[in-house]
């Protein structure tokens, strides 16, 4: 083979390889395109529009009118909005904190051999299976004055509580349902985290004479730190988005006691048709959600080379 022919042969080969590579790249772009298109149109575009609408006055009938930051200024002086924000914060704080020890505790108890364990685990998991709307309907019934919850409380000598009818207890009633539903969900995640801890660690600790509590404090808890952080973050995000249960059970009442932010956004937009104001509230919710989901995304991409 002459040297020119060889060179030619090499270029052809390289071109062929390049052709193959670009064909593969084309395929790779083509199969991710539908995903990118849907997310661009139905997630990113609405978010950008939310920022835009938050600067306008818009009632769906007249075209949007640019009013600058007036919506935000208004909101900061609106007692209803401030109340709603406070309700949301209270809901998040008091429905997230108890779930943490409860779900971790259950996971630890399940992480051992036990009679009819599988049955018990399935039974405790059941709340995750119940649709949110059904949950709202069933608990509304259970919270009735002569309902089953007050009956059971009566066994322990506790006087009947007005639950959903009193502004003092309505939020607690809703929070209780959130805990009931979230605990088994995060129990499953903790259980997965627990099972990732090598058994050798515990064996070694036992040889060193560490008891059950000592190995829990010095092995389990430190190794579960990433799982715990993720559980808190996910749970906070879920709690910030709670909507169906307060809408159906109380419609935000009594006396605005359960009007969480998503519910207020919904009512402002689709009952009072004040799209601009609702969008401005959405921006507040977005910032709050983003602070937490940023941590989540960071954890999901941790230790990866992203180029």
């Amino acid at each position, binding site marked *: 083979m002459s040297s020119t022919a060889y060179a030619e042969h090499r270029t052809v080969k390289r071109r062929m390889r390049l052709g193959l590579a670009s064909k593969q790249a084309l395929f790779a772009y083509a199969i991710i395109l539908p995903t990118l298109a849907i997310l661009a149109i139905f997630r990113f575009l609405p978010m950008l529009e939310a920022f835009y609408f938050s600067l306008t006055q818009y009632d769906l009938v007249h075209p949007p009118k640019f009013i600058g930051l007036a919506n935000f200024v208004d909101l900061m002086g609106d007692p209803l909005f401030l109340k709603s924000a406070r309700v949301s914060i209270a809901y998040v704080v008091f429905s997230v904190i108890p779930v943490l020890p409860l779900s971790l505790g259950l996971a630890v108890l399940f992480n051992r051999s036990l009679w009819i364990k599988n049955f018990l685990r399935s039974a405790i998991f059941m*709340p995750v299976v119940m649709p949110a709307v059904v949950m709202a309907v069933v608990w509304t019934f259970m919270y009735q004055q002569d309902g089953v919850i007050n009956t059971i409380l009566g066994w322990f000598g506790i006087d009947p509580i007005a639950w959903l009818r009193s502004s003092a207890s309505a939020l607690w009633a809703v929070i209780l349902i959130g805990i*009931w539903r979230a605990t088994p969900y995060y129990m*499953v995640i903790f259980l997965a985290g627990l099972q990732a801890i090598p058994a050798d660690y515990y064996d070694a600790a036992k040889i060193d004479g560490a008891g059950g509590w000592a190995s829990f404090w010095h092995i389990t808890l430190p190794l579960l730190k990433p799982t715990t952080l993720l559980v808190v973050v996910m749970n906070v995000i879920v709690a910030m988005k709670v909507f169906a249960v307060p809408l159906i059970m109380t419609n935000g009442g009594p006396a605005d006691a359960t009007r969480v932010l998503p519910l207020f956004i919904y009512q402002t937009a689709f009952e009072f048709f004040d799209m601009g104001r609702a969008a401005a509230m959405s921006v507040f*919710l977005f910032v709050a959600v983003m602070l937490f989901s940023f941590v989540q995304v960071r954890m999901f991409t941790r230790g990866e080379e992203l180029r």
Partner: protein
Amino acid sequence: MTGNAELVVARPTGPKTPAKGLIARLLLRRGTIVVFCVLFAVACITLLPFYWMFSSSLRTMENMFSLPIQWIPDPVNWMSYVIAWQAQDFTRYFFNSGVVAIAITLGNLLLCSLAGYSLTKFHYRGRGLMFVLILSTMMLPLEVTMVPLFLIIKQLDWANTYQGLIVPFLVDGFGVFLMRQYMLSIPKDLIDSARIDGASELRIFWMIVLPLCKPALVALAVFTFREAWDMYIWPLIIITKDSLRTLPLGISLFMSSYGTSWDQLMAIAVLGTLPMILLFFFLQRAFIQGIAATGLKE
């Protein structure tokens, strides 16, 4: 990251009974009994709403708030199911919910795995950026974007349509993440050797990659179906026509119009939960895997 869709199986890490004498064994036994009692009590709390929902659907209205409270319905009354089912077009609502949930599930299975495949087995410019962008949609929940999304759907003339209920949710950032993590464990050699054998890219994906992803796909399917069946806020915003109502809308409407017919309300609640309970019993492993996968694996 092979462990992502691994089953949550309990490893018997509990202390085994060593022959340390009777007292130690008794203490251990007592510990086990305490644990059992605690878990049993918790199970009673988690199951109470289910039992109460079912038993109340069979109780007659006269006995609904009787004193003392009636734990076992007597007489048993099945009529509430028939009456409730006919009070509104629940057949239609069930059908709509089924169509929407199945379409969203199939869409996610296909699009999430395609995107995951693209993100793991190919090298091209902007791949990392695309992954971060897709993942960051998890920061944009519907509760934040509902107002403009509603306006977009209205502009598309998709209010009161199936596509309005389905298309925005055909793919999900978390689903892509789940599939990507699972696909990282598929060896590249397998794909390369199929290429050498002359298989087309699409054929490789369909015949080699997808079958290998079965555990992740089942987990994703169950997870997505559950969320889609549960969807409430979005249909509430864009559906006003009765013939397009989904089951959650039907149930909440029933609640506002028949608010005190508790027997019928509970009957409908039972029927609305039944598909989820069946799914859970038949696909329990996948159900729990899907949720465990929302956590992290080291």
